[in-house]
């Protein structure tokens, strides 16, 4: 068969001058500009478009929009492939390729359809009752289950497209571009308010030139409102380029809008409900409104001969439009015993059977609908009676009534209520600044929708202070009479949730087994848990449950509507912030230099820091050892710009710092530094750093790189919230100053050459001294402090000059053999000196554990002092900082090892293994010529000289270690002070 045999020669919104070709399952087809994939498939007579989830039954197109549960295709291939795409919302473009999902080897012949034969063994939740024996086979069963489940395939290549997010603000946000929404946007727009109108379709359903001319109105088409969050924030997902084969260069594929609206108008329309009857999932059975939409908007006949099956009036209009498009309407079957004259008039010349229902759908080749069987039904019970009537048809257009699209309303925390006349849930009390209108509000009359829209748009604008047009009076909207016929009599499978293959019998089973609350029903049967989130199934499902439980529908309640309204891409949500742009990167003034030298980098918070500088002829480890050794022997420079720096000023600056550091600072004179430790309020060590008194009432305190933010927040909290009476000003100046440490015996000579006006003699500039100077017009701060344990300085210069000073140090020091070193060598040097960093400052240690007890002032109160006195923080048996050396003097101490006395002890049952401590840091010490480490060990200070084991089963290493003083190099401090 070739050609669009189901397409009419005239009519519809399509553009016949632009023919498009596309493929489905490898076969070529034609459609027109303006088609959806679904309308084009129907035009070509393609009936079966997918297989169902569990039974792998052939499925056709059910709807024409959001509601579609069946027609999910894998769109495109390669890097741009997209799983689970609703064919009813895909705009056709030339060259589009689509593939059916969930079938193997082909759509026509699907091996797993065999599940259908065993369907009796697969009722809802069957997997909870089986696959338990033998226990060890579950992982095998699971593999099979997993392979059978799932639907489309995730892409495995990098997405070439760009996604963006943006914020927007408006006075009135209108969701939905139907008659109600457009009328609301117009009324609000006329008032001068800033209006955004979002519509999922490529165009508004009413063309409105006036809107387009308003500067204050932004119309977003191809834009779905996905979520309604607190404080009137809505998330819109705009598809900019999905209707094209690929985005243009630099064009964004999808943009996610985060809109803060003062007022929201929800005009999201209503979705038609299916009817529940035997074999209602046959390809060819579709929603009446969908068949109508294909006929009217796309000039596509959903089939040649249709039976319309309804419980309400709206399907009569559908029948009329289908007929107008050339579909032969074999009969309208209405479950209601009687219909009004006006309704009957709509069906002039069409056979109408009231008080009847379909009790089976016959299928022909490929599973598509071939005819229906009906019977008369009992007006009260719905029980079939009398003799069956067969009618041949290839389409069943069904209508079970309408559900207002209340998803966003419900997400906004609005209360929904059940409306018996409409047999549907409708919006009740709003919670946010929101109005629901039109079909979304249960108003199904066209004129009434427009008036309701106008009034809501105007009122919303008025509420935020605009002069809006007057309200119009609305004809009292009489809802179309609908007789809720939820489930036709038993027979073959009656599907409620098409996507997840949940039948009316499954609901009955859930009821009998006690899964009766709607939430249990949902989770036990998976009703409403598919990609369509039960848009066509939820109300039918809970009505059937209500029937079993002999409760009214509102008493059974609904499940929770959750974002997103309809699925949105993860790429759109993340926008710019993935991969390298996931988080910002902070770089020092010398970064580019380090990169140019080929340094490797590591992350410290957001900072990137050079680890070491590769050297020809050396392995990485050798290069690191070279750097460390060189510092001890000569001199090295390291970039320490990343340390947190906080400028503290004010009359009470000293008092403030005294309260937050454990140290006694009163005797700290201007021009001196001190090593300081802060506790958290709970008494454990928070951070360490230096405190330098720059002036009488001005200090510079430093923090570790990773704690810079938290320390600043902690200090601001105390200053602003707890001690507002103190005059203290805090400012983070971390990025203002480039920091360079100059360490090694030659450091003094090097600096004396660069800063000739500074007296570097010990008396003039002692250890822990601070000097300010000026070099070439650049202000310089010099601190004589040492992390490496060497004679060392730290230099701070305004960051824009950082690189100059770095290179000047290297040039000036060339004769002194200066080299740059990275964080790896710095780490070795500090371990050799027994200085602690992150691995030891693990948030669980006390000042005493680290040997800082002596620093703790007894003369003043400070943060953490009181809770540090608690029993568990002062008891014997705490882990204390020790040095570690391998007992054999050479075996490396395994990183991450645990320390214990008996590595062969069997694992315990209920009492934790006797682990005495852990290795926190380890390295090979070039200075000592053997491996060393630091650790935290129970009563470690009393155990120097003991031999224990560093045990690392995870790397199969066990090393006997001797505990020592943690200061390996220069314990007397001669190098520091000399």
């Amino acid at each position, binding site marked *: 068969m070739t050609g669009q045999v189901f397409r009419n020669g005239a009519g519809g919104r399509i553009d016949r001058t632009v023919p498009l070709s596309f493929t489905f399952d490898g076969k070529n087809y034609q459609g027109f500009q303006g088609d959806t994939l679904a309308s084009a498939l129907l035009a070509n007579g393609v009936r079966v478009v997918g297989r169902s989830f569990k039974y792998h039954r052939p499925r056709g197109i059910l709807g024409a929009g959001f509601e579609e549960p069946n027609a999910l295709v894998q769109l495109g291939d390669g890097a*741009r492939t997209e*799983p689970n795409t609703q064919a009813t919302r895909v705009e056709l473009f030339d060259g589009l390729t689509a593939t059916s999902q969930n079938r193997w080897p082909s759509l026509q012949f699907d091996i797993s359809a065999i599940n259908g034969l065993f369907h*009796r*063994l697969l009722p809802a939740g069957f997997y*909870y009752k*089986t696959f*338990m024996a033998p226990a060890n086979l*579950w992982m095998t069963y*699971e593999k099979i289950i*997993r392979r059978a*489940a*799932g639907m*489309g395939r*995730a892409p495995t290549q990098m997405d070439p497209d760009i996604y963006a997010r943006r914020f927007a603000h408006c006075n009135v946000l209108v969701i939905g571009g139907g008659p109600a929404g457009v009328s609301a946007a117009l009324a609000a727009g006329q008032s001068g308010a800033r209006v955004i109108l979002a519509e999922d379709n490529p165009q508004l359903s009413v063309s409105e030139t006036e809107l387009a001319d308003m500067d204050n109105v932004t119309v977003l088409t191809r834009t779905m409102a996905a979520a309604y969050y607190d404080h009137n924030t809505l*998330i819109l997902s705009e598809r900019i380029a999905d209707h094209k084969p690929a985005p243009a260069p630099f064009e964004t594929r999808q943009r996610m809008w985060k809109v803060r609206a003062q007022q929201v108008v929800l005009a999201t329309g209503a979705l038609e409900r299916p009817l529940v009857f035997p074999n209602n999932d046959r390809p060819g059975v579709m929603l009446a409104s969908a068949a109508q939409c294909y006929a009217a908007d796309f000039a596509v006949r959903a089939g040649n001969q249709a039976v319309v099956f309804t419980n309400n009036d709206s399907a009569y209009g559908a029948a009329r439009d289908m007929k107008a498009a050339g579909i032969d309407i074999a009969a309208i079957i209405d479950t209601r015993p009687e219909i009004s004259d006006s309704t009957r008039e709509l069906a002039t010349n069409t056979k109408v059977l009231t008080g009847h229902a379909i009790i089976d759908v016959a299928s022909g080749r490929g599973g598509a609908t071939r005819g229906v069987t009906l019977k008369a039904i009992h007006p009260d019970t719905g029980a079939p009676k009398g003799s069956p009537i067969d009618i041949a048809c290839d389409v069943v257009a069904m209508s079970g009534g309408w559900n207002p699209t209340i998803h966003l309303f419900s997400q906004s925390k609005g209360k929904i209520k059940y409306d018996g006349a409409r047999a549907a849930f409708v919006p009740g009390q709003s919670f946010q600044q929101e109005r629901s209108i039109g079909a979304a509000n249960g108003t199904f009359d066209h004129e009434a929708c427009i008036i309701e829209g106008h009034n809501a748009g105007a009122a919303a604008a008025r509420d935020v202070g605009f002069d809006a047009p007057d309200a119009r009076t609305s004809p009292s909207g009489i809802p179309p009479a609908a007789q809720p016929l939820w489930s036709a009599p038993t027979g073959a499978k009656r599907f409620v949730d098409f996507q997840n293959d949940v039948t009316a019998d499954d609901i009955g089973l859930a009821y009998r*087994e*006690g899964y009766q609350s709607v*939430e*249990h029903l949902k989770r036990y049967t*998976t009703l409403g848990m*598919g990609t369509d*989130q039960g848009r066509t199934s939820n109300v039918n499902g809970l009505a059937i449950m209500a029937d079993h439980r002999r409760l009214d529908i509102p008493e059974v309640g609904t499940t929770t509507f959750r*974002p*997103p309204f309809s*699925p949105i*891409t*993860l790429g759109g*949500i*993340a926008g710019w912030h*993935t*991969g*390298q*742009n*996931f988080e910002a990167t902070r770089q020092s003034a010398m970064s580019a230099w380090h990169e140019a030298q080929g340094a490797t980098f590591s992350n410290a918070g957001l900072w990137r820091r050079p680890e070491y500088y590769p050297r020809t002829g050396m392995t990485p480890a050798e290069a690191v050892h070279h750097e460390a050794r060189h510092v001890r022997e000569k001199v090295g420079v390291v970039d320490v710009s990343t340390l947190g720096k906080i400028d503290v000023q004010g009359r009470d600056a000293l008092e403030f710092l005294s309260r937050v550091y454990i140290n006694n600072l009163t005797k700290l004179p201007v021009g001196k530094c001190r090593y300081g430790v802060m506790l*958290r*309020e*709970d008494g*454990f060590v928070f951070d360490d750093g230096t405190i330098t008194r720059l002036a009488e009432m001005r200090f510079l305190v430093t923090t570790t790189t990773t704690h810079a933010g938290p320390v600043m927040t902690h200090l601001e909290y105390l200053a602003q919230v707890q001690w507002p009476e103190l005059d203290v000003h805090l400012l983070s100046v971390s990025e203002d100053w480039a920091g360079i440490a100059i360490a090694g015996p030659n450091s003094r000579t090097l600096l004396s050459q660069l800063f000739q006006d500074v007296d570097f003699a010990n008396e003039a500039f002692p250890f822990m001294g601070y000097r300010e100077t000026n070099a070439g017009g650049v202000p310089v701060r010099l601190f004589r402090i040492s992390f490496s344990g060497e004679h060392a300085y730290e230099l701070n210069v305004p960051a824009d000059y950082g690189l100059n000073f770095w290179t000047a140090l290297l040039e000036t020091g060339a004769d002194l053999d200066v080299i740059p070193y990275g964080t790896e060598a710095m780490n070795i040097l500090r371990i050799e000196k027994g200085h602690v960093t*992150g*691995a030891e400052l*693990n*948030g669980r240690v006390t000042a005493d554990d680290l040997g800082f007890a002596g620093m703790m002032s007894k003369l003043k109160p400070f943060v953490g002092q009181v*809770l540090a006195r*608690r*029993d*568990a*923080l002062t008891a014997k048996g705490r882990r204390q900082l020790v040095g570690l050396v391998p007992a054999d003097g050479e075996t490396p101490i395994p*990183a*991450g*090892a*645990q320390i*214990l006395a008996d590595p062969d002890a069997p*694992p*315990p049952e*209920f*009492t934790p*293994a006797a682990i005495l401590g852990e290795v926190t840091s380890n390295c090979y010490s070039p200075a000592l010529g053997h491996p060393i480490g630091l650790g935290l060990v129970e009563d470690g200070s009393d155990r120097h000289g003991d031999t224990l084991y560093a*045990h690392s089963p*995870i*790397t199969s290493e066990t090393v006997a270690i001797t505990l020592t003083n943690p200061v390996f190099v220069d314990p007397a401090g001669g190098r520091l002070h000399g």
Partner: protein
Amino acid sequence: MSRYSIFSLARNALTGHRNWPKAWRSPNPKPAYDVIIIGGGGHGLATAYYLAKNHGVTNIAVLEKGWLGGGNTGRNTTIVRSNYALPGNTLFYEHSLKLWEGLSQDLNFNVMFSQRGVINLAHSDGQRDAYKRRGNVMRINGIDAEYLDRDEVADMVPLLDTSPDARYPVKGGLLQPRAGTARHDAVAWGYARSADSYGVDIIQNCEVTGIDIENGRAVGVQTTRGAIKAAKIGTAVAGHTGHLGAMAGLRLPFETHVLQAMVSEPLKPCLDMVVTSGVAHAYISQSDKGELVFGGDLDFYPTYAQRGNFPRIEEVVETMLTMFPTFSRVRLMRSWGGVIDMTMDGSPIICKTPIDGFYIDGGWCYGGFKATPGSGWVFAHTIANDQPHELNERFTLKRFETGAVIDERGAGATAHAH
């Protein structure tokens, strides 16, 4: 209890599945019980089950304000593991994991415990060492753990970005092979069905509104279905622990926060492990039904509403795509939230309280689903014997007063930092 098996399934198929009994009864509350458990989540139901099974106490009511399993048991990312480092946590979670390993058979309800392995990614040398440290504690305590290098991680998780120039490169990871996921709802249902079979009354739609205390002893509860007396009362109400504690006049070291989670549309198998990354907090797995199930951090403000806001979803998705860049065309299908009780050290509380006969099981923070069997087991022991089991003797309220906190993250007394 009628036994479930492939045979009973086949037998019932013959009668159109018309004869399956109710999984549990819906009794009206009696005036008094030996033990009342407040909270019909996994923990409460497991506690009732083990009280009956291990301790012979069967005159029990489990009171649930909504539908059973509707709390965090029904809204978590289902990760089950026992990869902890601190005494108190290690053996407790391992005990729980061992119970998981036989749970489907014990309950005769397939909870689909899938031991597919959990990998914690290390992105720096510091994290690598920390994971080794943790893995070593596990191994010494008899718990399985392996350290993987980057290439091994890449082999197991092919779609993970392991390129060395990634923003946060993957250096390796700690694998616990026995860890995995389970079908969360089934856990609640399985425990409910088994507890019910011992005669435990599971009473849904029954909210506890007050705790009756006489002479320092809890003697009963007020509920939306009337007053009920009990000799002993245990709460297992997850995010509501602080609130329940307040009913009994206790000020507890909790803050209640919302944690969101989300699922993608269902996909054919593309991720066989549970992968978690510490650099920006995210954890991802694929459910048996095919959805990618993932979550991250709290919303970071206290709330009792089971709904979150969008900034956190953005951040979790950003992290997820940074780890798995090819998922960017995959769609988010649903997101939701659960309220969880964050303790001041990130570890749980299972203990007696200063009020006689009143016991607390709570403070599960991000991770109490995995504890469900273990917590029920030790909580039952604690209630039955009026003293803790060795496995939970450190999970006290007192530890905050003495300072013997169990702070795996070292974040200190900021509840939401754990």
